[in-house]
């Protein structure tokens, strides 16, 4: 069987049809098209995307949250650098004050590089030749010592200034030099006659490293900062006010009121209320800015009543919040509107007729016929929109940038400002990731809750072809 299949696959054609019947044999390609693994082949690209852009980022957010990564440390490995602050740390943190002084000290070494540099600078060849012959390889602890050595030469320069100029080229220090690896740094120190015991080596490596390291400081900082609490309260206020007023409340108003209209006006209103959702956010917020600007619509309309023009969106936290909630709510209401409207449409017409024959007023019909049918859709919208409001910051960023004075800064926006964009230009990736990690945890928890709202069993009913 295997043999004949291979032959057919090789000849690349399906066996000739047998007119009297008899099963056709399959090519190898058809076998793959039929195999149990077809599902895996079809899933593979999606799986790759999910791993690269969901699983990896979630895990890495977890990792980055426990680092001090920032623009200062860079994102790849750092360098090793002995400078003022690292030497201070060596003295204070590891109690190697003497060693720090030693590293800080400048030495003068007569070497190839120095000679070459001096020659380039125009020192006389004879002087350098003699210097090379008499002192090559020697180190001097002080500038005065090396100058004295130069003065002993037969071909010494005539002026003290020239001697100083030559000596400068032999000045050697590890100070303020970036080394790519710890070994390079230690080798350089060794060259200057500073030898370290293992304990000292570890201390030096620790304090001179400029890259990022793992730390739990982000979370300590998050808990201790008063800003965190403000942001948290802002977030809760923003999410629940928008959700209740618009995403659920106003969505219900839209769905129910259009239900009591003819098809044409109902369609018109639903289309208009979809406009905020399909308009690109940048333009949508621009229209609100036009409304609120000091030469904008509100100011122009109120001008004749003696009210001074001002930027209505940013003049007070209350106004800022009003705009933020309106901007978000008008987009959010449309999703609820569509879902509630289709749920109302699913109510049998006979129920409406029956209640009207029974003498129900419109309010009673809404209360007793419509609302009970919307219980599940409301639950669905609430859970779904809570999550998306919690993590959305696009509109706030575009409208108020968290202002005035940070009064409309929500958690997601503050994450963005900390790690990706701020005026100071020092981006704290680590701290931002720690803030984002909080949202990730909340997001995962709520997504699982959301999953429970669906009847997962029926969604995963086994395929009917085995």
């Amino acid at each position, binding site marked *: 069987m295997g043999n004949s299949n291979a032959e057919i696959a090789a000849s690349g054609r399906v066996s000739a049809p047998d007119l009297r019947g008899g099963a056709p044999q399959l090519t190898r390609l058809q076998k793959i098209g039929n195999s149990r693994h077809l599902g895996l082949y079809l899933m593979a690209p999606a799986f790759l995307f999910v791993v690269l852009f969901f699983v990896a980022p979630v895990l890495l957010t977890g990792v980055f949250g426990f680092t001090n990564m920032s623009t200062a440390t860079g994102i790849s490995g750092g360098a090793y650098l002995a400078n003022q602050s690292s030497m201070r740390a060596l003295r204070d943190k590891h109690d190697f004050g003497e060693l720090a002084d030693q590293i800080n000290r400048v030495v003068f070494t007569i070497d190839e590089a120095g000679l070459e540099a001096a020659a380039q600078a125009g020192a006389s060849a004879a002087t350098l030749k003699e210097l090379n012959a008499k002192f090559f390889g020697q180190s001097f602890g002080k500038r005065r010592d090396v100058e004295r050595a130069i003065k002993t030469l037969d071909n010494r320069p005539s002026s003290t200034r020239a001697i100083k100029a030559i000596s400068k080229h032999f000045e050697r220090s590890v100070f303020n030099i970036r080394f790519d690896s710890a070994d390079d740094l230690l080798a350089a120190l060794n060259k200057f006659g500073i030898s370290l015991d293992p304990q000292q080596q570890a201390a030096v490596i620790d304090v001179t490293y400029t890259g990022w390291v793992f730390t739990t400081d982000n979370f300590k900082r998050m808990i201790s900062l008063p800003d965190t609490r403000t942001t948290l309260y802002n977030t809760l206020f923003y999410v629940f006010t928008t959700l209740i007023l618009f995403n659920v409340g106003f969505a219900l108003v839209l769905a129910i009121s259009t239900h009591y209209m003819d098809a044409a006006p109902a369609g018109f*209103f639903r289309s208009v209320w979809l406009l905020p959702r399909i308009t690109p956010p*940048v333009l949508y917020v621009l229209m609100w800015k036009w*409304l609120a600007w000091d030469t904008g619509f509100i100011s122009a309309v109120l001008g004749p009543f003696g009210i001074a023009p001002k930027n209505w969106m940013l003049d007070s936290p209350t106004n800022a919040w009003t705009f933020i909630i309106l901007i978000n709510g008008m987009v959010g209401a449309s999703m609820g509107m569509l879902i509630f409207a289709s749920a109302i449409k699913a109510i049998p017409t006979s129920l409406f007729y029956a209640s009207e024959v029974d003498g129900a007023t419109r309010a009673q019909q809404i209360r007793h016929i419509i609302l009970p049918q919307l219980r599940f859709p409301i639950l669905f919208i609430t859970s779904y929109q809570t999550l998306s409001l919690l993590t959305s910051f696009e509109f706030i960023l575009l409208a108020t940038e968290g202002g005035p004075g940070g009064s409309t800064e929500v958690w997601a926006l503050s994450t963005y400002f900390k790690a990706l964009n701020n005026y100071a230009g020092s981006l704290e990736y680590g701290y931002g990731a720690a803030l984002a990690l909080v949202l990730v945890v909340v997001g995962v928890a709520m997504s699982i809750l959301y999953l429970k709202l669906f009847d997962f069993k029926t969604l995963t009913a086994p395929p009917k072809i085995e």
Partner: protein
Amino acid sequence: MTGNYRKWPMILFLGILTAPIILMYFYLFVDTVTNSPPGSMIPNEWTAEHWRFLFTTIPGRPSIWTATLNTLLFATTTTSIVLVVSSAAGYALSRLNMPGRSLFLGGVLVLHAFPTVTLLIAIFLILQMVGLYNTLIGVILVKTALELPFGIWIMKGFYDTVPWEIEMAGLQDGATRFQVWTKLVLPQVKPAIMALGIFSFLAGWSEFILPLVLAPDNNVQVLSVYLAGLISDDTNFDMAMFKSVGVFYVLPVIILFTFFQSKLMNIYSGGNKG
């Protein structure tokens, strides 16, 4: 709906609430071709000057045509990849026996609701590490990935409505599972592919945060970032021109929305935005 209640109170009520939106969109278009005297909202002259950005590049900004091309590239590429990958994966999840199927399904469902912006920092750092920061490819891949769970979910839902018997008949007729998919099932879900395609295109066209963070440079800038850049530049404030750029930017959206409104209504009710 039924004839027992008066309709005009509802229409009046909703009309008043809807007026501000209509007003905003009305002035969006009017302001791009007119001038108004200071302090007034009533235009007194026609003008084309607000559209000068089409012919002259604004200092410090990329040409509007570069940005348009980038946006088009971004939106169409994202859409194509989303369509191909989610129609394959959606089919597998809807119809095929495979190990870990319910795990995939649960995963897609969770990701569909999952707040993707929380991953932005990690994605930003990943792109920097692999050298795709400030490239269109990088931001396209990211946008595609973030659209996928929704796309897969929608496609799975549509595949679920194709009768099993069609597939069984196909197998009996001698088709492989792969042929059943491409020749028999895909043609049945054409409307779904169409709707998802339009949805993805609009989502790509409107996307702001991802290009802002991942590809902000002039040569890879898309229209949303371009427009946001204009607006935030305090030294050069010109509301009428901003609106003109905005109208230029939103035109394809309005056109698609007008033609495919009913399809989009369907898909937005399963939507994933704000």
